[in-house]
């Protein structure tokens, strides 16, 4: 049995007996259970912003128009979904059917769906084989009208909100709901102010003359969150614009096409290039594939900080404890150093391994444990595919070990020249400072995995493992994998050699820690 192994084994067994170790191991399952528990509790309960409209226009035509516009817009999207593909269409129809069966016979939605059926629209849809653009304009208009009316009903009533959300998660009722405020009494604003103070509403709008010079009013106590204001303004603007356009159409005799042209916006279809060079649709799981590296970079960062701290503390303690010299009569300094590095590595990787196991189990079990909608959202992330991709995981594991070994060598050398923890804290500051860089560059590199910043950071040995993990979403070309691997192997070798030299001298030193210049001198002296 090699002495390095014996030293490593002792470190591991010793660490395993500490409370910290078991807290570390249990942190992951407890964390995952907490997160799932929260997801379970909060499923569907997004932070809902309630708002009121005090509409002083005649018969409140303006707010009705805004609702209608929004409904047409959002449910038009659903109509697009209906036509997206056969499978989606079928799934949607099934969801629709299941939900509708639960409703009372005279529920407005049932009536609207019956309209849908009575007018033969479903057959029309089937005829065009899913391509909505092939629908005759009249059918399309009718379809939109019914859907809009149906949507409006859902959007207007808080009771039906959850029903609406079952059809489409992207509806604005997910985040905002109009409380259908009805102005009674002398001073309705007084009443609204009271509701605002009592936190019954998040904000209210006062609309008097949307076409005149007088501005409408937005009253809230929270001006950091402007999303509700933007959301309402967007639809209100659309209403105002369409009224102006309608007026122009009559005055200037514009065709419907002219109006469509005026309203046309800039439309984007998101695509990406697959590994085989083909253009393909961007899916949510692709996004999570480029976000996953962040998780790994973060994990490496935590691991490096956690494990090297253990190593540093352990070395300094052993040194101040005077046991080092006894050990050195049995093992060589490099055996002792390597034993420590590997012993702590076993400890750290055991903790991380347990985390990974729980995480993988969590990802696998999530669809079974989470309530309906949350499960399908979770599934769309495609995390289970990442978990199943061995090459992807192996590259992370490799860079992970490399990153740890490099920093371990540096920190053990620092630990060896310090006589107290306080000294070591001062000396390790530059290393901790250097470790901020991967943290800061994490997002920019993720956004541009093959950009200049990513490439520069890759070839600084301190950051190679971080950068290469970070860039996995790219992914970088094969030669970069080869070059960075070669670089990191050489760097680790050099770091271990240098650290062994510093360790051999440093570990028996007492008193003031040496100057950097002295340490560099030790590293230059040849080993015997």
């Amino acid at each position: 049995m090699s002495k390095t192994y014996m030293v490593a084994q002792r470190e591991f067994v010793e660490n395993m007996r500490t409370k910290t170790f078991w807290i570390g191991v249990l942190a992951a399952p407890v964390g995952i259970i907490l997160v799932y528990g929260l997801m379970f509790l909060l499923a569907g309960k997004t932070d809902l912003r309630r708002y009121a409209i005090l509409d002083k226009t005649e018969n409140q035509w303006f707010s009705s128009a805004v609702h209608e516009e929004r409904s047409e817009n959002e449910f038009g999207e659903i109509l697009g979904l209906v036509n997206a593909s056969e499978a989606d269409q079928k799934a949607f129809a099934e969801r629709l059917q299941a939900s509708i069966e639960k409703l009372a016979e005279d529920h407005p939605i049932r009536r609207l769906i019956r309209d849908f059926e009575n007018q033969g629209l479903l057959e029309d849809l089937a005829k065009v084989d899913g391509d909505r653009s092939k629908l005759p304009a009249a059918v399309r208009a009718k379809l939109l009208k019914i859907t809009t009316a149906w949507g409006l009903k859902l959007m207007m009533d808080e009771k039906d909100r959850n029903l609406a959300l079952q059809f489409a998660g992207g509806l604005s009722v997910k985040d905002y709901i109009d409380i259908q405020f009805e102005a009674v009494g002398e001073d309705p604003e007084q009443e609204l102010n009271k509701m605002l103070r009592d936190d019954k509403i998040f904000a209210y709008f006062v609309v008097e003359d949307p076409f005149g010079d007088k501005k409408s009013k937005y009253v809230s106590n929270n001006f950091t969150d402007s999303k509700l204001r933007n959301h309402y303004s967007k639809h209100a603007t659309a209403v105002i614009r369409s009224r102006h356009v309608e007026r122009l159409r009559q005055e200037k005799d514009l065709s419907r096409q002219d109006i469509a042209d005026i309203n046309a916006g800039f439309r984007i279809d998101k695509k990406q290039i697959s590994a085989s060079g083909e253009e393909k649709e961007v899916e949510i799981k692709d996004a999570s594939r480029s976000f996953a590296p962040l998780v790994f970079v973060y994990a490496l960062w935590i691991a490096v900080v956690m494990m090297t701290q253990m190593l540093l503390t352990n070395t300094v303690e052993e040194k101040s404890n005077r046991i080092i010299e006894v050990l050195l009569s049995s093992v060589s300094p490099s055996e002792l150093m390597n034993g420590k590095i590997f012993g702590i590595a076993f400890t750290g990787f055991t903790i991380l391994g347990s985390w990974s196991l729980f995480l993988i189990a969590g990802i696998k079990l999530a669809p079974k444990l989470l309530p309906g909608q949350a499960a399908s959202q979770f599934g769309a992330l495609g995390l289970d595919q990442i978990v199943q991709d061995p090459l992807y995981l192996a590259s992370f594991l490799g860079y992970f070990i490399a990153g740890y070994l490099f920093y371990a060598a540096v920190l053990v050398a620092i630990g060896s020249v310090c006589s107290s923890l306080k000294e070591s804290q001062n000396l390790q500051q530059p290393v901790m400072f250097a470790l901020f860089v991967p943290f800061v560059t994490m997002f920019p590199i993720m956004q541009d995995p093959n950009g200049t910043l990513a490439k520069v950071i890759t070839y600084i040995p301190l950051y190679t493992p971080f950068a290469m993990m970070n860039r996995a979403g790219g992914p970088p070309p094969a030669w970069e994998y080869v070059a960075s691997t070669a670089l990191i192997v050489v760097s680790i070798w050099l770091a271990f050699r240098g650290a062994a030299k510093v360790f051999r001298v440093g570990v028996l030193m007492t008193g003031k820690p040496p100057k950097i210049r002295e340490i560099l001198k030790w590293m230059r002296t040849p080993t015997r």
Partner: protein
Amino acid sequence: MALQTSPATSSYTDALVLKDVTKRFGDFVAVDNLSLNIPKGSIYGFLGPNGAGKTTTIRMVMSIFYPDEGEISVLGHPNAESVKDRLGYLPEEKGLYKKMKTAEIVAYFGKLKGMDRSTANLKAREMLTQYGLGDWLDKKCETMSKGMGQKVQLLGTMIHEPELVILDEPFSGLDPVNMEVMRDTIRSFKQDNRTVIFSTHVMAQAEELCDYIFLINKGKKVLDGPLREIKTTGDHSVKIDYDGDDSVLHQLSGVTRVNDAGKSAEVFLDSTRDPQDVLAELVGKITIRKFDLSEPSLHEVFLRAVGGDSDE
């Protein structure tokens, strides 16, 4: 794996040979051109004031430091690295893993010296029990008293039955009971034909135990050789226990030096002076309770050799 060699079958005659060994730390010469032969089976004392170079010499022997010049042969091998498992070393600054159990740590030291797991575990428990720590086998080191800790450290040094044991200041900080344990242990090594080197700056300890001594000061060897020879060379002295005016002692003729402690004194005579005349001269001037003709103490040898340089 059992020990490769037993002391009886080893073929070397000197357990340790140093030849012209020099070690420098920057401009400071810690050990200067030192040569020594340490015969197998002897108890060898390294004497010298603090900072004389004892620990540096020992660390070079253990291959913890390397000499800048000169050669060291340990158990017939060019350096300690190849025979580390046959050496036992107790440094001056010694420690234990606080969280490890007593029996575990002793066994761990044994394992690091190449003993197999089960032998080391068994032997550790056996030795601890033998040394009166049977109740502490499964207790953590941090719960033990300092004296117990020192015993555990000593056992860690000897569990693998080393041929050469090097103890750096083994007596420092020991209470009288543990000092006796240490002395007995050192003597038992000799009985097993093992070689023991220990360093000390307390002469009485060396005088009691050593076959050979080596005296070092400021990195240079002052003298070395069998203890008996060293003590019989040099001037003879008388030990006098007395009451009365001590100035009488200093006024004696033919006296080279007086170590006066007030009620007892060591008086060194030049070679022509007869101790009987000294006794006659003193009678009537002071009350003599004891008059003892003796060899010079090692303490005197030490002081003479080191002169006023010692910081003792």
